[in-house]
């Protein structure tokens, strides 16, 4: 969506992205980015937490109104974990370690066989 935001912005439509993959969005370069430091999936607030969702969405409106230059990132203060105990999602996601290296290599191999078959069947998308 970063590319779409850039396109809309260039066409005169001010944009704001609300997201949790900070490095990807900032690497692309977008006008306004509200960073919510959560696991991927709930950038607009925790499930069923209406109050938090309202505040985060309000933060996006505020950023639209108040940013005066591109590449403006604002980080929301909300945290996913209640304490230090459940910060493990940061490491766990897409984990690569000695415990799964062989399995990943094997799964990748199997996937490429399927993809190779599909490509021969005229499927162009990766």
């Amino acid at each position, binding site marked *: 969506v970063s*590319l*779409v935001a850039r*396109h809309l912005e*260039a066409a005169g439509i001010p944009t704001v992205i609300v997201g949790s993959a900070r490095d990807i969005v900032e690497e692309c*370069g977008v*006008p306004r980015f509200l960073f919510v430091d959560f696991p*991927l999936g*709930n950038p607009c*607030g925790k499930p069923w937490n209406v109050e938090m969702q309202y505040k985060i969405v309000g933060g996006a409106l505020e950023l639209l109104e108040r940013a005066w230059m591109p590449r403006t990132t604002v980080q929301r203060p909300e945290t996913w974990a209640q304490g230090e105990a459940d910060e493990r999602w940061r490491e766990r996601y897409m984990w690569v370690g000695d415990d799964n290296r062989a399995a990943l290599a094997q799964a990748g191999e199997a996937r490429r066989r399927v993809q190779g078959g599909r490509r021969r069947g005229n499927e162009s998308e990766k």
Partner: protein
Amino acid sequence: MAKGISHRRYVSYIDKSREYYGASGYEQPYRWAHYEDVPFSPLTKPLPQCRMGIVTTADQAPRGAPRATRLFAAPNSEGRRLFTEKSWDHEATHTNDPETYLPLARLAEHVEAGHLGALSPRFYGVPTDYSQRLTLEQDAPRIEAWMCEDGVDIALLVPL
């Protein structure tokens, strides 16, 4: 004051996915989009006079559906029937509450409170995929055209 840390706290998904796909045997790392220049359009009128359009990366059709079905404009009433199988953290959370990635109700409350003029009658779906070319040449202009049809002044984009 909270305890200090010795490493960057936020996750680098560029690093993670490179290592993950590298370990899976994909030798060529993905080249993430990178630009020096970033466009910028300031608001030309106050938010209470603006109509907002929302762009999501959630799908209207289940995984495996053709790419064309993943670029769409749909009435807001269909925002509760989206597919979200894509890359998010299935271990840490879930997407059972659509307001966490397509905040139509929360935005309607801001409209009600007078913070925002209105919502577009439709929201817009854009596929996340490897082809930056298709996103740039096909998807982005299509989303812009839909937004113009709907009189959208400002856009909120939410990648899952």
